[in-house]
């Protein structure tokens, strides 16, 4: 046994363990300090520094002194400086490789403090996306400059001219068609030929009553045939008249549309190019839009910075692929009796020392994995002794507990915020400042997954606007200045909706109505002038064409008259034929009567017999 055991080795082992444990205790502070500084610097791309880290064993915890996080965009400034961060950790959870901090205190947080030396690093591992800066407090007077009417009409296609072109084509087609149709109809010559034929039909008198009657019957037959032909011709003419009338009706409808088209063109172009008085005077957006956009971007940037904290670690693991395991492998997770996220700060008490005053707050459930914890991150900050304001309250919830669904809510209230010399516009055309005012501000922001809705209301009182002209103001600017001088209180409403990346912002204020009333008259006059010009030019461009087409359309009446005339000729010939027929029938009847009167009884019987036989002949 002794051959295989060397007891001094056990002593050496114990000595090594004690040495390692002692060394860890002694150097743990330095190790943690270096760890925080290196990983923080890598993450931010700007230097993160700590003065000192103290370790306490019972209970297990750390105290970080003077944490300085350099602003990556301004290396001579700290974005955040914290005098002391103290926290205690659960040793049992640490054995499970989970960092669970029951309580943390973050004292004396200051923002934007000056650095003694630059905190820039040569290589920026990850550069935080800076918020879009406000594009300066520029301001344009309501736009009352109108585009040139000639330019508009050379650029825009008038519907009237298109309709005129269509109408002209239709008219040409109709004209060609009717010229052909009318040429094919019976004309004066044909009717004259009928007349000649009618007049030429005269039964030849032989003296023999029976032969004369037969001649009259033959003539009647011929006349009836001519009458039938004339009737057919008249029917053709009538049909053509009806068709022509229908075509004329269709063309008339087209011309009616054409007559209305210039008014429609005017309405369309007016809508497109003429600024309505209300649209031109969204003064609230012009004055406050940039400032609001800037603060919205600041809020979005802070949310972006906080996003990694809220990002679900489990989701990350699910997306890991076996190619990522080289020398590290994958930690396979199993069901836990008491699930705990890898990182959790149950409660953090924060005190901020800002220029505006001290703000205290509490943040709960800071974790990289809310899904495992089952509780959302909540925070509340409060201040009541601010330099330029009454109370400040900021309350929020970031709920990412359900997989695939997140719901973040922030509510902000700032009472009696005093505004002094707040520049609203640096524009030469209207340099406006708010010399003093007091504002009550309320805002609610909600983000469901990527759907953003936010509304803000600022009630401003005791407002005093001032303008500092560098050059002589225009009449419009002067009117606005005078209107704003009388404004003492107003409200600004902001509604935001859309996605985080692409949202619509609607800014409205009762200042809009005040300014609109003040300068509306001047703007209205300019608009009227522009609209009159536009209307006149459209008329000028379309009237001649329409008149020409109307004139050509009027010629359709002549066709109608032509057809009427032909129908009349037909009617005359028909009448002539009918008169002749009547006359022949009468003559025939007379002849027959005379013959009948002179007949013997024997003949009478023969006639009756013949009548029966040839009854058709005597009709």
């Amino acid at each position, binding site marked *: 046994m002794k051959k*295989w*055991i*060397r007891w001094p080795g056990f002593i050496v*082992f114990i000595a090594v363990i004690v040495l390692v444990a002692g060394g860890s205790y002694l150097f743990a502070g330095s190790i943690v300090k270096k760890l925080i500084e290196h990983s923080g610097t890598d993450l931010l791309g700007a230097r993160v520094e700590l003065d000192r880290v103290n370790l306490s064993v019972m209970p297990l915890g750390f105290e970080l002194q003077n944490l300085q996080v350099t602003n990556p965009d301004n290396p001579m400034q700290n974005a955040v400086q914290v005098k002391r961060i103290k926290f205690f950790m659960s040793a049992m959870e640490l*054995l499970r490789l989970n960092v669970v901090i029951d309580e943390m205190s973050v004292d004396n947080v200051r923002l934007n403090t000056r650095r003694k030396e630059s905190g820039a690093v040569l290589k920026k591992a990850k550069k935080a996306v800076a918020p879009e800066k406000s594009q300066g407090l520029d301001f344009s007077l309501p736009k009352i400059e109108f585009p040139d009417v000639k330019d508009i009409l050379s650029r825009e296609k008038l519907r009237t001219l298109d309709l005129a072109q269509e109408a002209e084509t239709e008219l040409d087609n109709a004209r060609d068609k009717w010229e052909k149709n009318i040429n094919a109809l019976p004309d004066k010559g044909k009717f004259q030929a009928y007349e000649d034929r009618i007049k030429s039909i005269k039964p030849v008198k032989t003296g023999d009553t029976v032969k004369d009657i037969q001649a009259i019957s033959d003539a009647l037959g011929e006349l009836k045939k001519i009458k039938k032909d004339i009737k057919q011709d008249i029917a053709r003419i009538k049909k053509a008249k009806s068709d022509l009338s229908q075509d004329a009706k269709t063309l008339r409808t087209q011309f009616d549309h054409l007559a209305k088209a210039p008014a429609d063109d005017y309405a369309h172009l007016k809508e497109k190019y003429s600024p309505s008085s209300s649209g031109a005077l969204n003064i609230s957006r012009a004055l406050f839009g940039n400032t609001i956009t800037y603060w919205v971007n600041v809020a979005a940037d802070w949310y972006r910075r906080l996003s990694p904290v809220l990002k679900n670690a489990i989701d990350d693991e699910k997306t890991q692929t076996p190619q990522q*395991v080289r*020398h590290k492998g994958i930690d396979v997770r*199993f069901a*836990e009796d008491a699930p705990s996220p890898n990182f959790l700060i149950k409660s953090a008490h924060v005190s901020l020392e800002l220029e505006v005053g001290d703000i205290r707050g509490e943040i709960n459930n800071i974790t990289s994995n809310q899904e495992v914890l089952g509780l959302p991150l909540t925070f509340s900050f409060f201040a009541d002794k601010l330099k330029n304001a009454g109370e400040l309250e900021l309350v929020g919830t970031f709920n990412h507990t359900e997989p695939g669904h997140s719901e973040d809510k922030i509510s902000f209230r700032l009472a009696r915020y005093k505004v002094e010399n707040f520049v609203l516009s640096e524009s030469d055309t209207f340099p406006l400042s708010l010399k003093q005012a007091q504002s009550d501000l309320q805002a609610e922001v909600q983000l469901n997954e990527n759907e953003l809705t936010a509304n803000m209301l600022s009630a401003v009182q005791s407002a005093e606007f001032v303008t500092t002209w560098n050059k002589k103001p225009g009449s419009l600017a002067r009117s606005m200045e005078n209107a704003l001088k009388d404004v003492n209180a107003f409200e600004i409403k902001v509604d935001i909706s859309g996605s985080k990346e692409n949202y619509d912002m609607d800014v409205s204020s009762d200042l809009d109505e005040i300014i609109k009333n003040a300068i509306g008259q001047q703007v209205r006059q300019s608009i009227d002038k522009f609209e009159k010009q536009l209307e006149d030019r459209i008329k000028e461009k379309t009237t001649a064409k329409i008149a020409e087409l109307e004139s050509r359309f009027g010629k359709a009446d002549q066709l109608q008259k032509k057809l009427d005339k032909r129908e009349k000729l037909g009617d005359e010939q028909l009448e002539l034929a009918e008169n002749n027929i009547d006359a022949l029938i009468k003559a025939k009847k007379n002849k027959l009567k005379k013959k009948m009167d002179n007949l013997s009884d024997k003949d009478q019987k023969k006639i009756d017999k013949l009548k029966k036989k040839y009854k058709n002949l005597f009709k």
Partner: protein
Amino acid sequence: MLDSFARFLKVLNSETEPGQISLALAFAMIAGFTPLLSLHNLLIILMVLVLRVNLSAFIVGLTVFTGLAYLLDPLFHQAGYSVLNNESLKELWTSMYNTSIWRLERFNNTIVMGSLLLSLLAFIPFVLTVNYLIVRYRTSLLRWVEKLRIVKLIKGSKFYGVYKSLSGLTGA
């Protein structure tokens, strides 16, 4: 390192018990294949120090097996992944996962599990094989090796100087 290797050769060529060398190399295999800062390696260190195994063989073996581990990582990962995702063992792993000491051991990591499992499985066969090889080396191969021209050349080198000086110090 040169010293350690020279010491190892000296031990190999000496009358040291083959079991002490093979056991040292087997412990080195576990410590070298698995991530060094693992809880089980504390136990390996304790055993290396308390059991009378050859320390030079352990140091040389640790160096060699650590290098080999880099090449065998994909194999360890695959083995660990298969074992940890085996349905029939799930209950065992779940129970271990809920125990702090095993969590500290990081048994649920595919590399830790794969490398530890494979090196434990290879432990006894490895000891027996190395034992046999040492005996064979000493009985037949050693004399034949010493006659080789290359060995004679080595004997004239700096390395051999170190080796000799160590032999002189220990009187071997």
